[in-house]
């Protein structure tokens, strides 16, 4: 009797562990499938034309306007969300580490981190695009600036969170040493603490860039898209994700190929960022262990 029970328990155990291993294998297989497909289709479609032609040329076209638009809007988004996010994160770590206000901001920031990006896009549409259109009498509506602001809202919570966490890792002795020399708090924060946490904060910035670079939904109603090259921040601006979205929904296989090439570019960009990020995290951790 007891022997069969033992056997049963052992069988259940073996079965469960085998299923766990299968689940991991399935997860890895899906990752492999997605990456392999992107790589194969993207490499087949990769062409110099992508970087020289604009998407207005249709099937003979490229992505140069979308790539430039994406670069401008991503950098613009960083220009907005890095200072604001670092400042907010610094406030949480240095001025409100235990206060109720700090706790609730931290809490709501975590919610913003996974809020639906399409709603944030609509928020920017209502709060930026519509007023700009009204102020300019309809001359300016969708714009690269609005796109940057929408993307900044995606990156902001990431930067707030990493800055907060990284500053909390800075040893208290550094603060004590600086304060005992009579350094005012702002100087201590800017010149000592932020510098000490710099590599960690850079990690956060790269993480934010990796997240916002692939976002499509917030751009649909803010930057809209543009088939021609534009550098003007108040014009409709194309971007790689939105172009992929349009091309993938098109029946033409030639446009699908261009969409795959764009997908490959974004995936490579994001993966390169992840790798760089890991290097930084590693270095940061080593520095603090010493």
């Amino acid at each position: 009797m007891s022997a069969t029970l033992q056997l049963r328990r052992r069988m259940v155990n073996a079965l469960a562990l085998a299923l766990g291993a299968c689940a991991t294998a399935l997860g890895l297989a899906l990752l492999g499938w997605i990456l392999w497909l992107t790589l194969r289709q993207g490499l087949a479609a990769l062409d110099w034309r992508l970087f020289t032609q604009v998407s207005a040329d249709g099937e003979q076209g490229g992505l140069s306007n979308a790539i430039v638009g994406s670069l401008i809007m991503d950098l613009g988004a960083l220009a907005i969300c890095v200072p604001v996010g670092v400042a907010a994160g610094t406030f949480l770590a240095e001025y409100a580490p235990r206060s109720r206000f700090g706790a609730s901001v931290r809490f709501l920031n975590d919610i913003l981190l996974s809020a639906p990006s399409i709603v944030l896009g609509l928020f920017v549409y209502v709060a930026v695009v519509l007023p700009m259109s009204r102020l300019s009498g309809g001359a300016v509506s969708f714009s690269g600036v609005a796109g940057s602001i929408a993307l900044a809202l995606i990156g902001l919570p990431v930067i707030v969170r990493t800055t907060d966490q990284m500053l909390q890792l800075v040893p208290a002795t550094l603060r004590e040493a600086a304060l005992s020399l009579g350094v005012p708090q702002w100087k201590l924060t800017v010149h000592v603490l932020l510098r000490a946490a710099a590599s960690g904060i850079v990690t956060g910035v790269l993480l934010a860039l990796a997240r916002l670079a692939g976002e499509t939904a917030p751009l649909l109603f803010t930057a809209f898209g543009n088939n021609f090259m534009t550098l003007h921040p108040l014009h409709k601006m194309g971007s790689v994700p939105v172009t992929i979205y349009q091309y993938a929904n098109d029946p033409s296989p030639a446009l699908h190929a261009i969409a795959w090439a764009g997908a490959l570019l974004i995936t490579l960009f994001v993966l390169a960022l992840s790798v760089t990020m890991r290097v930084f995290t590693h270095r940061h951790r080593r520095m603090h262990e010493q």
Partner: protein
Amino acid sequence: MSGDRANMRYGHRGDPVPGRRVARADGAASPPAASAVATCSHERRARADTRNDRWFRGLLQACALLVLAVLLGAALSTAWGGREVLLGQGWRFLGSAQWDPVTNNYGALAPVFGTLVTSLIALLLAVPLAFGIALFLTRTAPPWLRGPLGTAVELLASIPSIIYGMWGLFAFVPFMARVEPWLSASLGRLPLIGCWFQGPPLGLGLLTAGIVLAVMILPFISAVMREVFQAVPAQLIEAAHALGATTWEVAWQIVLPYTRAAVIGGIFLGLGRALGETMAVTFVLGNSYAISGSLLMPGTSIASSIANEFNEAVGTHRSALLALAFLLFVVTFAVLLAARLLLRRMTRREGLR
């Protein structure tokens, strides 16, 4: 540590700290005659420092408030944009299955149905898989393999959703179109749930969207589970093993009950992601406002309705879409709030924070 920091900071909130003037008196060699002037300039400097500190603090606080303003703004702006439909139709908006831009009749039922069904499918598939992955990565896998494998699985989370959309549309939909006849023939014969799996093998549809969503939220749930499973005290696990429990029994009867709140929090986090996901779903859902009893039929979701129609919508149509966005935001906010509260309970108990 924080106590020390709070005390030190307290000194700076008020007037200049007396100790600072001592520390700043670096001109100790200066003659007595100059000391009055020096004190004066020191005082001025201390006052300037205090003022700068106050400004600095105010600036940082304003930025922190901005985070709250974004959340509030997202809720208010969508509610304001959708006021025509929200106020005009009230609860009828939720109950009506009509969505007709021609007659200007809008009801939220079809998108809400699609959102809930796809998210539930995603959870049903992703939760057991995530548990299996977390179990494997914390208990079974050899230690040298845990890090790399965990990183690889979590790499799924960093792939942009548009790539999932492309994969879904060009690889997974054709795959499902081949699998679905088989599904109809096997699961479709079951008594109660059989009708869910009957229908034309389009490849597109609620089931496909649910599966793509499952793949997308899998890394989020498994990352949370892995993290909290590692935080279970070793004594508990060792004690159970010492009583003769198998690895599975330890996981199911010790680890899981101990981490229940956080695990549910992780699941809610995944649900929050699934509800609001736009791109991947839009590609594979088929965009149809018919509410169908079959999971193989196309449908629509809140996010994909907005993505598909917002730029062409005007007037009431636009207002209805913004009202949908408001609904989505409120529901996601509630789900994520619950998730974070559950997760926080675990970190509190662990003293991780």
